[in-house]
């Protein structure tokens, strides 16, 4: 289900969320955020109702009565038509605090999801729930089903080979946490996806499993219709821009794959280099024990090499934890995008098939039958959504890669700076004249 145009939101302009009490929550609400600052003029009216009047069920509209025509709320409504940028964002989500749960059947990790929002859809200004990877996977599937015309961000890899990677190691959990955080942030940045009801439930429900079971009974309608195309009708011609996107994604994924392999190879070579360094340094130490005047210089060199080894280890760890996963995410992203493109093709094919069927029937209808029109609508919506998402994706991709590659350069610079410092610091030691005997 495509989200409709966003509802008018209670807003008082660029206040920080913490300063704004939720219009539906009075001072008696335990979940109220902040609350010591002076409320905006728009809220004054609601506040004066008194405590009991403010405890309203979800979906109530007292917010709407507070000067909807005020200039600031109008402005905000307009601004929401554009991409949500930092200043007008009203939904903030963070993933943190991983915890291990040991049960009889299994052991797993949960993450804390903290949501802060002024949106009307949310009863409370702040939520804190615990979710595990399964839940994220469920959310993503639901989003794909309910928003098939949009690009859904990827999740970090689901399966890990047991024995090779420790699912509970700090590094693995941290890498995953960052990826899950990125996942939710991408969704909440999206003007359409961020209003999806499954997302809201995911962010707010105390017990997700209950909701999951309910949801199972109802199969979404739209998803079904797009899944299978009968007849295998071939696409007449793909619009140029989508063909171009398809080609781009193919090459893009290829190049990323190559970069992934190169990065892995570099890390492998660096680790082997590290192994040799760890043998190399101590030999100087052994030598220094044999000498007299040369003892300190040799010991100094040994320590220096040790420092360089440590710096190298930090570099390889960083690259493994921060660089490779993001690269892989983008490969997954482009894979899922390709399948959305295929769906678009199917929708277009369906429309063209219907159109042709009508033409063949040679019925003398003045206008196109309703279902064909519906198909055309669906196709045009799909094209529009996809186009918009592609642009936003390209932008984000550029920023993400800029950050990723600058980060890689940074880590290498830091490595060399650490080594430089180590070697420069022993020069005076090496140049020291022995004490006159």
């Amino acid at each position: 289900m495509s989200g409709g145009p966003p509802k008018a939101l209670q807003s008082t302009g660029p206040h920080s969320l913490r300063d704004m009490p939720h219009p539906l929550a009075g001072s008696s609400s335990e979940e109220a955020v902040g609350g010591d600052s002076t409320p905006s003029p728009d809220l004054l009216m609601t506040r004066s109702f008194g405590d009991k009047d403010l405890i309203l069920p979800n979906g109530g509209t007292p917010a709407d009565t507070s000067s909807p025509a005020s200039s600031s709320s109008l402005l905000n409504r307009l601004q929401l038509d554009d991409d949500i940028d930092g200043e007008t964002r009203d939904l903030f989500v963070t993933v943190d605090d991983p915890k291990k749960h040991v049960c009889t059947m299994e052991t797993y990790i949960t993450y804390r999801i903290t949501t802060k929002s002024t949106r009307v859809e949310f009863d409370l200004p702040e939520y804190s729930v615990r979710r595990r990877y399964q839940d994220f996977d469920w959310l993503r599937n639901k989003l794909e089903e309910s928003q098939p015309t949009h690009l859904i961000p990827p999740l970090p890899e689901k399966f890990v080979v047991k024995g090779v990677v420790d699912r509970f190691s700090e590094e693995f959990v941290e890498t995953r946490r960052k990826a899950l955080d990125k996942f939710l942030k991408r969704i909440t940045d999206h003007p359409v996806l961020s209003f999806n009801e499954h997302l809201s439930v995911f962010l707010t429900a105390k017990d997700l499993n209950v909701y999951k079971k309910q949801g199972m009974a109802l199969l979404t309608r739209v998803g079904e219709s797009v899944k299978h195309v009968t007849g295998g009708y071939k696409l007449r011609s793909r619009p140029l821009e989508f063909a171009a996107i398809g080609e781009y994604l193919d090459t893009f994924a290829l190049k990323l794959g190559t970069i992934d392999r190169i990065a892995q190879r570099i890390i492998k070579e660096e680790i082997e280099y590290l192994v040799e360094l760890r043998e190399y340094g101590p030999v100087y130490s052994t030598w220094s024990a044999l000498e007299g005047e040369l003892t300190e210089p040799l010991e100094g060199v040994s320590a220096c090499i040790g420092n360089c080894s440590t710096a190298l280890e930090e570099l390889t760890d960083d690259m493994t934890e921060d660089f490779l996963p993001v690269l892989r995410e983008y490969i997954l992203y482009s894979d899922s995008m390709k399948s959305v493109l295929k769906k678009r093709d199917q929708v277009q094919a369906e429309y063209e098939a219907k159109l042709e069927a009508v033409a063949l029937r040679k019925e003398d209808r003045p206008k196109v039958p309703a279902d064909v029109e519906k198909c055309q609508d669906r196709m045009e919506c799909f094209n529009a959504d996809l186009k918009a998402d592609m642009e936003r994706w390209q932008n984000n991709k550029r920023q993400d890669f800029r950050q990723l590659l600058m980060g890689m350069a940074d880590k290498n610079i830091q490595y060399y700076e650490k080594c430089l410092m180590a070697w420069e610091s022993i020069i005076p030691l090496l140049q020291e004249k022995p004490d006159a005997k």
Partner: protein
Amino acid sequence: MRLRRRIKSQRRAAAMEQSPPQDPGRQLQSAPLEPLGHPAAGLEAAVSEDAEDTRKEGPGDGTMTENNFSLKKIEISVSEAEKRTGRNAMNMQETYTAYLIETRSVENIDGQSVLTDSLWRRYSEFELLRNYLLVYYPHIVVPPLPEKRAEFVWHKLSADNMDPDFVERRRIGLENFLLRVSSHPILCRDKIFYLFLTQEGNWKETVNETGFQLKADSRLKALNATFRVKNPDKRFTDLKHYSDELQSIISHLLRVRARVADRLYGVYKVHGNYGRVFSEWSAIEKEMGDGLQSAGHHMDVYASSIDDILEDEEHYADQLKEYLFYTEALRAVCRKHELMQYDLEMAAQDLASKKQQCEELATGTVRTFSLKGMTTKLFGQETPEQREARIKVLEEQISEGEQYLKSKNLEGREFLKNAWADIERFKEQKNHDLKEALISYAVMQISMCKKGIQVWTNAKECFSKM
């Protein structure tokens, strides 16, 4: 790839006393090395020369001592290497490399250098020279030659003796050898060494005429002495242990360093692949394209920078190798001491036994076993005249023996003194050189880090423009 750098710790000019070149004969007389019958005799001459020499030669680093106007600076260089073919001893065609040795004398006043000699030598002639020096100067730590075959190579380096890089490094090593010899206060005065630099033809015959091969201590004798000596000087025993340990450690170090170089090479080279893929990727991008492309170029620069870096590091490895080979020279001096000490102990033992025999004969008691005693028991006592005769022979032998022991003792002490003096000199040289080597190694590492920072900073800037 020519290695541009000469070995830094080298003393390029050597102070060498040079009498007018027309009369090397005069030099010969003052030099301690007449082809005499007994190498030890040469030492005696060296002893008296030595005190003089150290005053004249100074620290042997090529600097002029203030009081010496007669000294001229000599510059020695091994400037070229050339492939040659010729016939060997078995009249078979062979290929070898010849090295050009140029000697220049530098006038004290105007500082200009004049080429005085230039000739070609091959590696085997260097070996011959060194073997000669080992025999005639057993109390000196004789500088080593560069390795005969390439060892401790990391995979990019060739182990082939004909490889130009190997030949180039060997050229530098041979020059280093000559500079070491010419800056040694004692070795530089050797006539054969002088002829090596100046007399192209017939030099080999001249060396062989000294008969030094015959004077060399037999390996078996030396080995025997090492095992059987009872009271070697503790300093030399310690020195021998030190040499053994040092050899083991430097070998280990060189092996690991070669592996480190290999791995480092791999790391740098793989980065070159980024260059290609960034270029390909930039082709499908719009705004990101330029940044990616130029960053890729920097990755290529990074990948190719490793070749020079590792070439410089080989120089460090060569410095370590020289001291690895020096351990053998140290051991040779220790072995010589053990041999002399053993001879001394044997002589003393022999003397003691003869004295014992004499005493027994004189007093009539038989405590030591002797064949004569045995036969006497079997065949009857000998006559007093026979006994007198034997006593007289023994007394003569004892007297000779005592003289012999005395001179051997003196020899031994002189050897210890001179050898230890050279060992002290060597220790100073070693500490100085190795410190210099470590400093230059650190400088190389610093340069490598700075290059790395530069390249990645450039790449980062390109990324920031994406």
